[in-house]
């Protein structure tokens, strides 16, 4: 039986967190939440996580800054960007900083499923 992925959702929108939590739990994941980049960095440093999902446009510390900090602290932790700011600049910047995928909002469940499947595959290859 596949182990449950422990995923941290980072988004300033309570609506988005709620929807994403529902979708991820349906996909068999264990979910925790952060409201901004600062909280995500704290969680990445302290909590047992398999994946972090980061929005880009957030108050205080945005997703790109958070990604930079998380990659330094935990370079092996997969980070998936999920944002409305899906211009080529944002996608390239995120991928160059080490994000493993970029999903444009509004997301579809299938996109989420595929991204998680790639993460699981990557995890089993690295194991």
């Amino acid at each position, binding site marked *: 039986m596949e182990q449950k992925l422990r995923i941290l959702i980072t988004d*300033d929108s309570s609506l*988005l967190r709620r929807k994403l939590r529902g979708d991820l739990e349906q996909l068999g994941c264990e979910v925790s939440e952060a409201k901004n980049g600062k909280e995500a960095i704290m969680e990445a440093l302290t909590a047992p996580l398999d994946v972090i999902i980061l929005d*880009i*446009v957030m108050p205080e510390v945005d997703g790109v800054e958070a990604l930079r900090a998380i990659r330094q602290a935990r370079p092996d932790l997969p980070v998936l960007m999920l944002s*409305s*700011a*899906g*211009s*080529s600049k944002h996608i390239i910047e995120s991928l160059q900083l080490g994000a493993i995928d970029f999903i444009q909002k*509004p997301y579809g469940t299938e996109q989420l499923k595929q991204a998680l499947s790639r993460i699981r595959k990557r995890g089993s290859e690295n194991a």
Partner: protein
Amino acid sequence: MLRQYFLRQYFAQALLNKGVLSREQVVCLLASKDKHRSTIAMRALSQKVMPAVQVEEILKREEAPEKFGALAVAAGYMTQSQLRSLEEMESNTNLDFSQGMIDEKIVDYHTLESLLLEYENNATTIIDNAVQQIAAQIESFKELEDECALYSGYVDAFLRAMAQFMRTSPVINFSAEPFSGEKSVILISQRLTGDVSLAAGIMAEEDVFRRMAQRYSQEPDIEYTEEIVIDSVAEFLNVTNGLYLINLSNRHYTVDLAPHRVAYNIIPSANKQLVIPINADFGSFQLILAADEIAF
């Protein structure tokens, strides 16, 4: 593809621009859209399977309306295969809106046929014309053609996002309805910075915000607390601006999005500010556009 979209979406706006319908008539028809489902006669006319003269001839036969298709086939005005296509065709906003105008006896099939033809020929300029009509009312905007073009592009993206994510057919009104003063008025704004500088805000009374949030979030089972309402509308604005940003990025503009801001009961003020009043079936609100941050 784009042209098909315009043809499905903006007929009501075109009639309002042209003065064929009043704002009250448009609002009334939008509000009662579920009452008017397009008939085979309407579909035959809109798809140019039958001209108005043939449609009216069949309808005058005083037989049950559901026999329209069979009678039209028997008269040789359409084939059985065309009838099947019309029956299977998915209705759309323009078709249902047109049906509403016929049902409410606002126009007859001949007039509708001419209006549809004119609409098809001018469909892609409808939003530009509406924004220009609003801008023309403001003295300082008369020389600002570049801003008008930028704002028109944004308004088009915004209205499309409303149609896609809220399943509504909004129309631009030419004069703002004053807020009642009895309820809180909320403004959510977000700024785009970089090669293009633009701020966009949604301002509405709290009950309209609530209905907008319900429409966007599609979550029937949750309690719409103030936080959920604000987050839902902010997320809609964020997603809309994200799609607009991709469009700009494809044209080689580099643009960033700032986090959204929320204010209550304020009068917004900004550089090159334009207020676009919008009517949707869930209520009226204002889309505030400006060249820089909206001050509050």
